[in-house]
C-alpha cells in the first residue's frame, strides 16, 4: 500500500519515503488551510524543509560530539563521559550549557565586527552545503541542476571565514593558524574537486540527484553499481576521502588548530558560544563533505544489496553517513598529526597527480564500457592507476620519507 503510493508518485503523507518531508507538507497544509497565498505557502514550506535539515544535523552534531568522545575513549582504553545522565547521554547538554554561560571575550586589539562575523560565517556555508545533498529518493531539500558546483562554491566560503577569524582576532596564534588553514584548504581543495570531476564525466551531469540515480542497479546481480566499485572510482574515492579529512580540518590533518604548536589556531581568541559555533561549523562541514562523498562514490541513498529496496532510501543514506563518520573517528584515534611540510608535499606530490590520473581513467572507462569492452576497460584503467601509484609511493618512501634511524652508541 505504502510502496504503491510512492511508486505511483502520489505523495502519501505517512509513507516512510516521505517521512522526512512531513514537517514541510504539514506546514504547507496548515498554510493552505489558513487561506495563505501560494507564494507564502511555498516560502513556509521551504522554511520548514530547511528547519528539518538543520534540526537533523544539529541533533547529529550533539550526538556526534558525544559518540566521538566515547569512541576515542574506548580506543584509548578509557570509558569516556559517563557522569551526565545515563552513560553520559546528557553530556552534549552539559557542554552546551557550559558554552552558553561562559564569558564572551573580545580581545582589545580585535576587529570586533569581523570577530563576531567569523563564527557565523563558518556555520552558514556548511548549512548551505547540506541543503543540496539528496538524502533520499524524495528528500532533496533543494534540487539544483548545478548542485555540485554550488556545493564547492559554498564550501570555499569556509576558508574565508577561517581567515577572517584569524585576522580579526588581532593576535599571533590565530593569524598563524589561519595562514596554515588557508594553505592547507586551498591545497586540498584541488585534489578534492579533481577527484569529483571523474564522477561528473561519467554521469554527464552536475546535479547531485542525477549522480545518485546514475549509480542505481547492480553489477553481476549483487555488486552495487556505485562509482566506488570501479578502478577510477576507487582511486578517486580514496583521494576524495583523504582530501575531505583535510578539508574538514580533522586529525591527522588538523594542523590549523594544532594545539601543541599554535594553541588553537584561528579559534584561540574565541570563547563561549562563538567557540561552540566554530565547533558546530566544523562538524556540520564534516557532515556535508561526507554526505557529498557518499553521494559521489557510495551511491547516495541507493541500497547496498538487491532486494533491500523496501527500506526507505534516506535510511540507507544515514547508515552510510554513520559508517563514514565512524571511519573518521577511527582515523582520528589512530594517526598522529602530520607536519606541515609533509602535509603540503602529500597534497601536491601524491594526491594531485593521482587525482589528475583519475580523469583519463574515468574517460577511458566510460568510452570502453559504452562499447561493451568491459574486460578491456579493466585491463587498461587498473594499470593506468596502479603503476603510477606504486612509482609515486616508491619515490615517496625512498627519497622523502625519513630514513631508519641508526643508533650509533646503543646498537654497538
Amino acid at each position, binding site marked *: 500500500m505504502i510502496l504503491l503510493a510512492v511508486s505511483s508518485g502520489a505523495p502519501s503523507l505517512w509513507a516512510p519515503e516521505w517521512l522526512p518531508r512531513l514537517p514541510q507538507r504539514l506546514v504547507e497544509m496548515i498554510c493552505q488551510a489558513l487561506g495563505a497565498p501560494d507564494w507564502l505557502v511555498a516560502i513556509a514550506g521551504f522554511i520548514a524543509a530547511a528547519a528539518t535539515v538543520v534540526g537533523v544535523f544539529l541533533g547529529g552534531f550533539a550526538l556526534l560530539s558525544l559518540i566521538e568522545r566515547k569512541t576515542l575513549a*574506548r580506543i*584509548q582504553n*578509557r570509558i569516556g563521559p559517563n557522569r551526565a545522565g545515563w552513560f553520559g547521554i546528557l553530556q552534549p547538554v552539559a557542554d552546551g550549557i557550559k558554552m552558553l554561560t561562559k564569558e564572551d571575550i573580545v580581545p582589545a586589539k580585535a576587529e570586533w565586527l569581523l570577530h563576531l562575523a567569523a563564527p557565523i560565517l563558518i556555520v552558514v556555508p556548511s548549512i548551505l552545503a547540506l541543503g543540496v545533498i539528496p538524502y533520499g529518493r524524495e528528500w532533496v531539500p533543494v534540487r539544483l541542476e548545478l548542485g555540485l558546483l554550488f556545493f564547492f562554491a559554498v564550501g570555499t566560503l569556509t576558508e574565508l571565514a577561517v581567515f577572517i577569524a584569524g585576522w580579526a582576532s588581532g593576535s599571533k596564534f590565530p593569524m598563524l593558524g589561519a595562514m596554515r588553514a588557508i594553505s592547507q584548504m586551498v591545497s586540498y581543495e584541488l585534489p578534492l574537486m579533481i577527484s569529483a570531476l571523474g564522477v561528473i564525466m561519467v554521469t554527464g551531469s552536475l546535479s547531485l540527484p542525477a549522480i545518485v540515480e546514475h549509480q542505481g542497479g547492480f553489477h553481476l546481480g549483487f555488486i552495487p553499481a556505485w562509482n566506488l566499485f570501479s578502478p577510477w572510482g576507487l582511486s578517486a574515492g580514496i583521494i576524495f576521502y583523504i582530501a575531505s579529512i583535510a578539508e574538514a580540518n580533522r586529525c591527522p590533518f588538523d594542523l590549523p588548530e594544532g594545539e601543541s604548536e599554535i594553541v588553537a589556531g584561528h579559534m584561540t581568541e574565541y570563547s563561549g558560544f562563538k567557540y561552540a559555533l566554530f565547533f558546530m561549523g566544523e562538524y556540520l562541514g564534516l557532515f556535508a563533505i561526507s554526505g557529498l562523498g557518499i553521494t559521489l562514490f557510495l551511491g547516495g541513498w541507493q541500497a547496498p544489496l538487491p532486494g533491500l529496496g523496501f527500506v526507505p532510501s534516506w535510511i540507507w543514506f544515514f547508515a552510510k553517513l554513520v559508517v563514514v563518520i565512524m571511519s573518521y573517528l577511527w*582515523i582520528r584515534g*589512530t594517526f598522529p598529526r602530520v607536519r606541515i611540510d609533509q602535509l603540503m608535499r602529500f597534497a601536491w606530490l601524491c594526491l594531485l597527480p593521482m587525482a589528475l590520473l583519475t580523469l583519463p581513467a574515468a574517460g577511458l572507462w566510460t568510452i570502453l564500457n559504452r562499447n561493451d569492452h568491459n574486460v578491456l576497460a579493466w585491463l587498461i584503467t587498473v594499470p593506468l592507476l596502479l603503476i603510477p601509484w*606504486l612509482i609515486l609511493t616508491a619515490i615517496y618512501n625512498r627519497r622523502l620519507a625519513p630514513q631508519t634511524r641508526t643508533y650509533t652508541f646503543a646498537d654497538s
Partner: protein
Amino acid sequence: MDQSSNIHRLPDPARAARWSLPGLGLFKGLVVTAQNMIQSYYRKERMTTVQYPEQRAPISPNFRNFPFLAYDGVDPVAGLRCTACSICEKECPPQCIYIVLDRDANGKSLKRPRIFDIDVSVCMNCGICSEVCPFDSIYMDGEYELSTDDRFDGLLFGLDRLAKSADYHMKLRPEQATEVAARRKAEEDKKLATQAAKEAKAKAEQAKKQQELPGQHEKGADV
C-alpha cells in the same frame, strides 16, 4: 604477563625494513586501534582507570601527607601520646605547628597539649615532625581528600582533627605501627619491671626496717 606483552607490541625491526605494500603500515595502525576499542569492552585488564569517587586505588604505606597525632586506647584526650614537648614545633621548617602546654590550677604541667594546631595550608609534608618526635606521637597521614571551602579555619587542624587512634595508624602503615607498638610495649614492660623491682625493693626495705625496729611497731600497735 603475556597479555601485557600483547598490548605493548613493537614492530620487529627486521620486518619493518623489508619492502611492503605502500600504505600497509596505516592499516596495521588501524587494526591496533580497532583491537583496543573492541577489547576494551570485554577485557577487564585494559580498563586501568580507577573511577575515582566510587572506587579508590589503595594508597601505598609510603604515601605521606599532613601529620596526625596518635593516641592509645579509645579516649583521644587521655590516651594522647603527645607530651607537648614542643620539639616538633621548633623543628618544623615552615613553622606550621602551634602548641600550648596544658597546666592545672597550680600552674603545674599536665604533660599534654591544651592547644595543638597544624596549619595545613602552610605545612609542606616534609615529615620532620614525625622523625624528631621522641614519644611516637606524630606521624604522617594518608588522607588526601582535604579540600574545603573555608581557607582559614578549614585548613587549621586542631586536636579534634589531628588526634587519631593507634589502630588507624596500624591500618594505614602496618609495618611502622607494628614496630612502634612493639617498641612501646617493650618500654612499657621495662618500665613496669623496673617499677615492680623498685616496689619490691621498697617493700623489702620496709620489711627490713620493721624487723630492725620491732619495739616501735608494737608500741604503735598498742596505741
